[in-house]
């Protein structure tokens, strides 16, 4: 199990909004739900790599800004009749700070 990495204060993410986290090799979108649960997902829609971080979040899914695919933030899977999947990462809030586990992942899609 890889370690938990602190990335940002929860207060620095708007409710139903996201922040972009850039690592050496990819961008990750960290979302904050209306219940303050946080989700981390690779910032690329399985459809045409649209930046999911820029989409509108609702419940625990996000709608991609490019072509309106709906992606489940817990599984990374496309919802509805669309098919596709992107990577998700374990995320949690500890004492007001968002932590992620960034295991090296192979791209899915």
């Amino acid at each position, binding site marked *: 199990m890889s370690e938990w990495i602190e*990335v940002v204060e929860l207060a620095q993410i*708007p409710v*139903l909004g996201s*922040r972009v986290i850039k690592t050496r090799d990819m961008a990750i979108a960290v979302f904050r739900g209306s219940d303050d649960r946080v989700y981390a997902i690779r910032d690329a829609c399985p459809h045409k790599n*649209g930046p999911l971080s820029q*989409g*509108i979040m609702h419940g625990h899914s996000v*709608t991609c800004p*490019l072509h309106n695919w709906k992606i489940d933030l817990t599984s990374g899977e496309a919802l*509805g009749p669309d098919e596709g999947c992107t990577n998700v990462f374990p995320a949690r809030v500890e004492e007001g700070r968002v932590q992620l586990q960034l295991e090296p992942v192979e791209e899915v899609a």
Partner: protein
Amino acid sequence: MKEKLVLIGNGMAGIRTLEELLKLDEADKYEISVFGAEPHPNYNRILLSPVLAGEKTIDDIILNSREWYAENGITLHTGDKVNEIDRVNRKLKTESGKEVGYDRLLIATGSNPFIIPVPGADLEGVIGFRDIADVETMLSASRSYKRAVVIGGGLLGLEAANGLMKQGMEVKVVHLMDRLMERQLDDPAAELLKCSLEADGMEFLMEAQTAEILGDERVSGVRFANGSEVEADLVVMAVGIRPNMELAQRAGLYCERGIVVNDTMQTYDPRIYAVGECVQHRGICYGLVAPLFEQAKVCANHLAQLGYGRYEGSVTSTKLKVTGIDLFSAGEFIEEEGDETLVLQDQAQGVYKKLLIRDNSIKGAVMVGDTMDGSWYFQLLREGADISSLRSSILFGQHDLGDAGHGDETRVANLSADAEICGCNGVCKGDITNAITSKGLFTVDEVRAHTKASASCGSCTGLVEALLASTVGEGYAAAPSKKAMCGCTELSHDEVIKAIKKEEIKSMRKLFDYLNWKTPDGCASCRPALNYYLLASWPGEYQDDLQSRFINERAHGNIQKDGTYSVVPRMFGGLCTPKDLRAIADVCDKFEVPEMKVTGGQRIDLFGVKKEDLPAMWKDLSEAGFVSGHAYGKAMRTVKTCAGKTWCRFGTQNSTGLGVQLEELTWGSWMPHKYKLAVSGCPRNCAEATIKDFGVVCVDSGYELHIGGNGGIKVRVTDLLCKVDSEEEVLEYCGAFTQLYREEAHYLERTAPWVERVGLDYIKQRILGDEAERKALHERFKLGQEYAQIDPWKARADGAQANEFTPIQLAV
């Protein structure tokens, strides 16, 4: 312990109800079982005609496989008819001897074909046209026999006759009346239809009353009341259906022509519900599929004990599914005294269209040959829309189809499978019809979700509707007249707008709570709409919710396919100076803008800007005197102008200066959709003002004001609102019209469809009818502008919303 829900009748209405129920969380409370008399799982009964015609197989029309029942934990008993309902002990007895208890019962036994009680009606080879068994009988008869007689020249009879003809039989259609499909067609339409079918080889015996079916064991002929006879090896009776209510009657449930149900689809026994062709609701028994689906939705809602939703009856339309023949009928078609009719008849082309008009609204439509606009007329009919302003052109159809590059391809049924329907997403006719049949789709929304056809610009919606209608025939579920905003609510846009004002709802949370939103945070479709409605209703009071805005409006730039943004600085009236251009050039150099372009609205677009660079770029632009061009928003975009009186030898008024004034008045305002203006200095109209949302054409004697134009998906020329004498009046009328649109149009509705929906007369009455009201609208517009004309670029250059533009760098 779960409650037991039993469905009697494994057909479209009953299963649709279960499907609606399964969508709800409350479905969990039931253990569901289904009894069907037929040996098949649920299939699409409407598509029996194409199966008979050899265009589809039985496997093609199965809607729910046996796996579907298993996956949803539903116990299915096929080929086992329920013989008795014991209401006292809440038990059912079936033909095979099973006894099953129930807590709730749903009856969806459908209907039976009516067999005319004449001698010989029970001979071998005499059948109805109702189920797969009937189709199999007909198909096997067509292999051994030659002559078929179909009794009944209605929808079902003609489809049966067409199918038998396709199977190589000689077919005679016997009809009691002097007109085919007399419940849907008037004389000219019926005559045209008869001619087309005769040309295909079908024979007709009109005004013929069947007296006896002849034959010993198997049918050999039919004798009529006038004594004449025809030979026949197969007789199909398609003279109508009767609700199948025998079981319910024996159980003591109150029945008239059908099982009587109330608006929540309950019978007189509150534990027993009924849906579909077996029921009678408010005196009407329906024999088409679209109403059944509306009933299913309401019934599921009450089975889930959610307790809202009422079924209030349906207006139905009819499509004939005979390949190559386009026919559409809805509402009334025989005029009463005082009614008017609009008729277009072209015998040579085989086209006939009639609209029946009463009190300026459509009461009925009959179309043969060209049915492309059937769904549009049907929509106008159900909405009761005032068509007086459309009258002169309504018969030529809704031009959005032709103008979107589909040309004259009005006979959608005749298009080849590889004809492209949706130009945005590259979806062909074959993709759509395959999805409709293989996935069992019934609505445009479903087709959109599965194929993406009409999911982008929407200009092919009419074609998709027509394909849906020609593929599933009368089962096509036209969008209900009251359209819910989205899946999160049953409320329409108008109802939401009204509630926001009446109940003084000023926050998104309060709105969700008060209006019982079904999802916790709404969705990507309703949130931007609600945010706009709240913002437009309560300027200065409602706190704009950035997370409810589409990214372009949140980041104040247009997102491009690679995730970069484009930036368009505002240039009032399209005017600029060398200093302005130098400042733009410097910004492009500094931020390494890869491409610049002059836009259609006379502005300069800077492409390929990284999001994190936006605030710094805006800072430079802001210091050079530019504000946001709002080229990214559902907002006032640009005021386009022509050369103007200063230079142009034809110019009449100070049009360029007026354009600048209009832009100074309107910039920054949020709108239901994008909103464009133009001012032309003379009737040559170089600024193209007559395809703008609000256009001004200067003439020597004053200013013509034009509204509701559009140059996009569907080209629409403006309507002339009025002519005024002074620049002050232009500004006032512009403010008033803009505010009316802001207050009353639906989110994402451009002025063109809005003007068509509410009618030019209404807009004239609001703007021209009452000076005080016009001034009040203009004042409200100006009030909103006090809060809207704060440049979002400068605010962000000064540090607002910094998180939005700042990624977090991790060293891993």
